[in-house]
């Protein structure tokens, strides 16, 4: 069974079984992969495009630094747009001035997957997991919160770890604690890096 895990702090924790389309995070939708799960092979990275960069967004903004959105520069507005702290509508010149119409259309297209996806995603493929516990032990949050348990290689001694081995496979328990969530999130990939069978993956690749 494949599970997509919720990713954003502001959103409610939810588990989705992959019978529904995946949250699209890159420019290309991932929904076409649902019917062909074999394409989810990470080594080939088919269909998994890179996430949207602030620079791409900035190039399509007015670049006038008019501060009408409340930000000092258009670049910082682009950053906040991607972090979903600002909305495209906050940039009023883009909607009011006709010369930006083309750019607006392109921007809306570029940001479309971002607006649909309120979350970034962690995918756990239980079929590939052997329960080695590498992800549980390497997790820096686990090491900090439970140094005598998970930090030292044993099972968790705290009630709500992020990941836990249950019935021989990895299960996600408390996603909110992960360093990838929150305003100042860190794109940590420690668990994925130490999973040689690719049972743990992130949507961005």
């Amino acid at each position, binding site marked *: 069974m494949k599970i997509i895990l919720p990713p954003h702090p502001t959103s409610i924790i939810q588990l989705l079984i992959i019978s529904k389309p995946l949250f699209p995070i890159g420019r290309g939708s991932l929904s076409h992969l649902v019917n062909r799960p074999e394409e989810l092979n990470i080594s080939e990275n088919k269909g998994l495009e890179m996430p949207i960069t602030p620079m791409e967004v900035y190039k399509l903004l007015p670049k006038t630094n008019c501060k009408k959105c409340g930000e000092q520069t258009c670049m910082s507005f682009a950053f906040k747009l991607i972090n979903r702290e600002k909305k495209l509508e906050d940039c009023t010149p883009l909607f009011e001035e006709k010369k930006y119409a083309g750019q607006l259309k392109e921007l809306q297209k570029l940001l479309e997957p971002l607006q649909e996806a309120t979350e970034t995603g962690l995918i756990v493929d239980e079929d590939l997991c052997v329960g*080695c516990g590498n992800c*549980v032990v*390497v997790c820096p949050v686990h090491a900090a919160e439970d140094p005598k348990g998970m930090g*030292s*290689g044993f099972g968790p001694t705290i009630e709500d770890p992020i990941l836990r*081995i249950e019935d*021989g*496979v990895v299960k996600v328990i408390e996603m909110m604690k992960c360093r990838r969530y929150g305003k100042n999130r860190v794109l940590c990939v420690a668990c994925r*890096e130490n999973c040689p069978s690719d049972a743990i993956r992130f949507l961005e690749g």
Partner: protein
Amino acid sequence: MPDGMSTCTGCSCLCPDIVIKDSKIFNACRKGSSIFKHQDERIEPSIEGKKVKFEEALNKAIDIISSSEKLAIFGLDTIPLEAQEVAIELAKKRKAYIDDNSAFCLGDFIELILKGDLPTTTLDDVKSNAYVIFYWGTDPYNSLSRHLSMYTYYPRAGKRQRGYEEDRYLVVADVRESHTAKLVKKNAKFIKVESDEALVEGFLSSMEGKAGKYYEETGRILKEMQRGKFNVIFGGLGLKYGLNGKYGRFIEMIKKMNELAEVYFIPAGFHANMRGFNELMFEKTGSINRYSFETESSAPEYEFSELVKNDSIDTALIVGSDPANSLPFDVVKKLKEINIVLIDPKPSLTSKIAEVVIPSAITGIDQGGTMVRSDGVRIKIEPLLEGEYTDESILQKILEGVS
């Protein structure tokens, strides 16, 4: 199954932190959790395939063993030391052959360690001190899933508090890029070996200051070993079959490495209590396996599969093992022709060809006892629930019953 904590006897890691709560198994790997999950799929006592009462099966087994002329006892790797001791007593009483899986598993390395040819340490010391962690001819990710995360590469303990990124150096030597080799990233080295002997020679010539085969890798690894001071090599079946019985140069290599820094050797892993059986036999007889109590000696032709192949036995008492599954087909074909008494908790291929089947218990679930981890540390195992019969009590009754 009742809630509680137990020790997993799925492999020789003997993970002590398994939690069972609301019929869910926590912390065990896939292999270990399946033992707990499917523990109620047990075998019934039977004689020639027909279900009988436990006592009937036991009496029939005593009859068969008493009337046998050439008996071999085989298996014993998944039962506790206490039961193994009774099995050795039984072999002594019946002047039988006794052997376990170590003959074709890592028995050779255990013998070298017990004889003092290879320096060894414990996994707890590895956890708190080891810097270079060298897996040679083994893929622990698949065979001993929690080995890396619990004992060697990942845990932060003792002098190695900064974790795998800074305080450990992983080396994997294998013929292919195994799952474990995929973990080789920063601060790590993968050597794709064509010949294990050549790699041994490579290390030796590097230490002599010559550039032999694999000189780039060996030079770097030796430098890291000097830096780390405490290092460990885990040898697996790939190394055993790669060296093909010629251990002289390998022992010399470890000896020379120890002039540079502390380098220890631990066999990677095997059945839960294989090392226990080897240690018991070594203590009692001076050999670790393939032993005949008739000639009071050990020899390669006393290996269980050889005995079956050469028609040297008429009865086999198999305890906690499934040779019909693990031995080659032509051996199993011959095994079918002799009398088999099986003591095992679960249905298996061997139970289908056995004359008499006596159900026993699973260590860690319905029987306790002492087992020896792959590094030689004795672990006391408490049972989760009270079982009706244990391997020890069954073997004790057979020992008392046979003439």
